[in-house]
Each structure stands twice: as C-alpha cells, then as structure tokens.
C-alpha cells in the first residue's frame, strides 16, 4: 500500500469510520445503512479519502436528525401542557426545572406538577427545582394517584390562567406493562381537565444509553405518541448516537439537549452541532 503513496484502501477507510460510528452508539443497523449510503454516494476514489467519507456521513446524519419541527405553539392552548416521560434516572425532573426557568424568564406563568408520587423524595426534588425556576409546584400525597395530581395541576392552571403546565412522571422501564398503562391513564385523565392536554409528550433520553434507547422510544411512542425528545447528559463523554436511528425510524424531533446539572444547562437541539460532536 505504501507503494501507492500511502493511500488507504476503501476497506481501511470504511473500517476506521465504522469504529467512529459504533463507538458513538449509532448501532449496527444505522451504521450499516450509513456506510451503504456513502458507498453509493461517493466515487471509488473519494471513498479512499477519509475526509470526504466523513463529510458525506455528516451531511447524511445531519439530514436524518434535522426534522425541523415548528416552535412550540404556546399560544395555541391555555394552559399549554407538556408531559415528561422516560425510563428511570434519565433527567426528567431536572429537565423540567430547566424548562420551567426558561419559560419563566420569557415572561410565561408556569406550573409544575409533581406527578411522580412513587419514588422517595421525588416531590421534594421538584419543589426545589420550582424554587430555582421561580415557578409554582403542585404536588399530592406520597403514594397518591399521579393522574389525580396532574389533573389538579391542570385544573389549577386553567382557573389561574397560567400559560404552561409541565407534568413530571415517575421513571419507568418501557417493559413494565402496568406502569405503561398507568402512564396512558395519566394522559387520558389530564384531557378531562383540559381537552387538548397534553399538547406535547416529551421523551427524555440519556445520552449514556446504548441501543436500548431505541426500544424505549418505540414503546413510549406506541403507548402515548411522543412529540419530542430531550437528550440529556451530553456534557459527559457519551455521544448519544442512538438518536439517529430513533429519528430515522420514528421521525420524532429532538427538541433540547441537557448539558449539565444546573438550571441553565439546557440548549435547543442543533443538528449540525450534534453531528460535528459525533466525530470529535
């Protein structure tokens, strides 16, 4: 190979690129699909150029994740109700704090609903976030019915004329049928307090998760209809590549990314920035 000016073979280049894709949690199926795309898209000569291969991949990945959703239609519903769901420990409660603060700073009146009535100190945790965001928290009794707490919060928001309700729910694995049924019930019951609720159902996904995040997205989507994704913990070393497969298969847009543990650590999702970071 050195005889030919030290140029790599196509197989070598693709193998090196494959490693980048896999270690970013892009997964076997999506990585193979991306490499197939690059093989068709580029000429034989370009396929030997790692830079050209990377650029082609970046463009295709950015295209897949750039679902360009419209901005949240806060004016379309009063209150505008956002429901946060996801498996255990991904960052739902923390993210509600961040979003609450963001909306409060924009001059909206926000109510947070402590819909996790199960886990130890869950309501207390949300109350502290309510303080940090400058926002009211409505909670129920520990062990109470989450649907009732959220119903109360939405009704209170209606009578107060609040702009937004953000509903926290307990973390749960998508494989647990009774817990998924509970979530469906929460969704049905809040519509009784306000017809169009929930206006958004956000799935919170942890960037450290591997391929299981795809199963999470499928199951939560099947149960509730997910309207947006929030990808947390991108301040760590995990790349969150699994969302490429999620966007490709389910066409659900990533709305925000979480990049830390303080109230400010939330950013709107930027497809280009996300794609660049995959290859760093």
């Amino acid at each position, binding site marked *: 190979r050195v005889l030919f000016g030290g140029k790599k073979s196509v197989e070598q280049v693709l193998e090196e690129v494959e490693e980048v894709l896999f270690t970013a949690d892009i997964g076997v199926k999506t990585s193979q699909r991306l490499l197939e795309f690059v093989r068709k898209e580029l000429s034989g000569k370009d396929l030997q150029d790692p830079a050209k291969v990377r650029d082609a991949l970046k463009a295709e990945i950015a295209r897949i994740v750039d679902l360009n959703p419209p901005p949240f239609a806060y004016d379309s519903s009063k209150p505008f109700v956002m429901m946060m769901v996801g498996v255990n420990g991904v960052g739902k409660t923390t993210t509600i704090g961040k979003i609450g603060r963001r909306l409060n700073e924009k001059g909206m009146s926000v109510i947070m609903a402590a819909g996790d009535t199960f886990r130890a100190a869950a309501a207390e945790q949300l109350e502290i976030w309510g303080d940090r965001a400058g926002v009211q928290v409505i909670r129920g009794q520990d062990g109470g019915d989450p649907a009732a707490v959220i119903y109360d919060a939405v009704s209170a928001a209606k009578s107060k004329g609040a702009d937004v309700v953000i509903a926290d729910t307990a973390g749960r*694995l998508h494989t647990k049928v009774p817990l998924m049924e509970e979530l469906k019930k929460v969704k049905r019951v809040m519509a009784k307090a306000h017809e169009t609720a929930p206006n958004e159902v956000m799935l919170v996904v942890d960037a450290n*998760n591997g391929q299981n995040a795809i199963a999470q997205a499928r199951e939560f989507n099947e149960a509730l209809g997910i309207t947006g994704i929030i990808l947390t913990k991108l301040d*760590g070393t995990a790349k969150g590549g699994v969302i490429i497969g999620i966007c490709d298969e389910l066409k659900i847009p990533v709305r925000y990314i979480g990049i830390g543990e303080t109230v400010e650590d939330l950013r709107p999702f930027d497809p280009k920035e996300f794609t660049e970071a995959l290859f760093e």
Partner: protein
Amino acid sequence: ALSEKLAITFKKLRGHGKLSEANIQDALKDVRMSLLEADVNYKVVKTFIDSVKTRAMGTAVLDSLTPAQQFIKIVNEELAAMMGGDSKGLNLSGRPPLAMMMVGLQGSGKTTSLGKLARWLVLNNRKPFLVPADVYRPAAIDQLKTLAGQLELPCFDSSTGDNPVDISRRALAEALVQGHDVVLIDTAGRLQVDEPLMAELRNIKAAVNPAEILLVADAMTGQDAVNVARKFDEDLNLTGVVLTKMDGDARGGAALSIRAATGKPIKFVGIGEKLDALEIFHPDRVASRILG
C-alpha cells in the same frame, strides 16, 4: 437469537466437506454483530472475537462433525472466562465499622442500590448505617433518609451545607460510637471527567479507608461504559460493580465492557425499583443475555 443465526451459518457450510477458515469468519461475524447490538464496546468485541478466532481456527472446530456446537461451546467458554465467576458478595472481613462507597454517573441507581445493600446486610446479620454524602442533588439527603425510614435503619444527619468528606469522616466516627458495623456512603453522581468531583471521591476514600468501593452502572449503558469504568477504577481502585436496571430489556453488554476494562467483579444486579430488588451476580445468566 445468536444460536439460531449460527445454526443457519453453519448449515450453509454443510455439504462443502470440511470447514474452512472463511466459514469460521462468517460465524465470527455473526457473533460480532450480536455483541455490538448488545452494546458491548467495539474494542472489547474485537479482543473477544480474536480470542474466539484463535481457538475456533483450531482442529477442534475444523475437524468436528458438529462444528456449530463446537463453535458455540468456545464462544460460551470465552465469554464465561471474561465475565468471571459467581459473585461472593461484599467483603465483610476486617474490623468494624467497615466503610463502603457507592460511586458512578448521574442517575445510575446509587442511592436506591445503597438502600438495597443496607437491606441485604441486615438479612446477613449486619447493622448498617446509611450516610447521605450527596449535598448537591436537590433532596438527595431527603431521598436516602426516606429509604432509611422505610428500612427502619439509622441514617447520618447530613445537611446540604456540609462537606462530603467531613460527612463521611464524622459518620464513621458516629458508627464506631453507636455500634453500627457497616457504613454505607451515598455519593453524588458525577462525570468521570469532572476532576474536582473525582478528587472529592479520592478524598472520601482517604478519609474512611473503605472495604468496598462499588461502581454503580446502568445496564442500558452503551459504548462509553469502558471510558467511565476505566477512569473510576484508575482514580479509586474499585472493589466491585453493581449493575442496575437489569429488569428491563437491555442486553447489558456494558457488563462485559466494564469487566474487560477494569477486571473488577460484578457483585450485584439491580432488578427493580423496590428495596428487595437485588440479586447476587451470576455470570452465566448475564452472558447468555448479552449473546442474545
């Protein structure tokens, strides 16, 4: 399932007479794909496949009348070797009170697992003392106090203004006075690249000289498991790992990655949110789940 895929791969080879190296390569490819789909780290997969290949290219498979069985046998043996033996539980030798630290990334299940271990220790005739040393996460101290209350076990009275190293030191002193023989320290979740917070863990370790430092890792963790585990191990010299949320459908390849990266034993597996949802680690169960 992998065994079905391999059966198909080997079936295609029958009638071609003896197996060739190329045939073995196809079977290796099946194994590789399965492990990657299970979230085993890319480099760990490479090392694993190489060790399987070395054995599979031997006459044992090539001359065998049942190459598929022989091949699968090698894969299972290599996987079992990598996963280590059955867990022996916690290291409870040494003069009490023994300190134990729960460490790991944010949200991995440290606080809940600490509660589970406290319950397990009571069932093993110990007197655990729960110590909230997470002063950062909102209501973290509250969370551990609540779990202690559910278990009717004593909990150190930390407050958010305290320093986690002081909390740990004072809790150990209190345990000595009160006759608690195991001190379980809950630490805040942190990134392995957060140097000041990793230093805090090293300082807690220096202050209490723990009998166990357990990395609590989420079974759904992907490729990054290697980077996280390696850094926690380098900084603290872990004594073991607790793999949480195994009650889901994650294949759990992170278990193999973490084991390969650190050589440290997986001691326990979390299988639910309740405090009784803890099992001793059995490598064969986890191995067959990873292989798929």
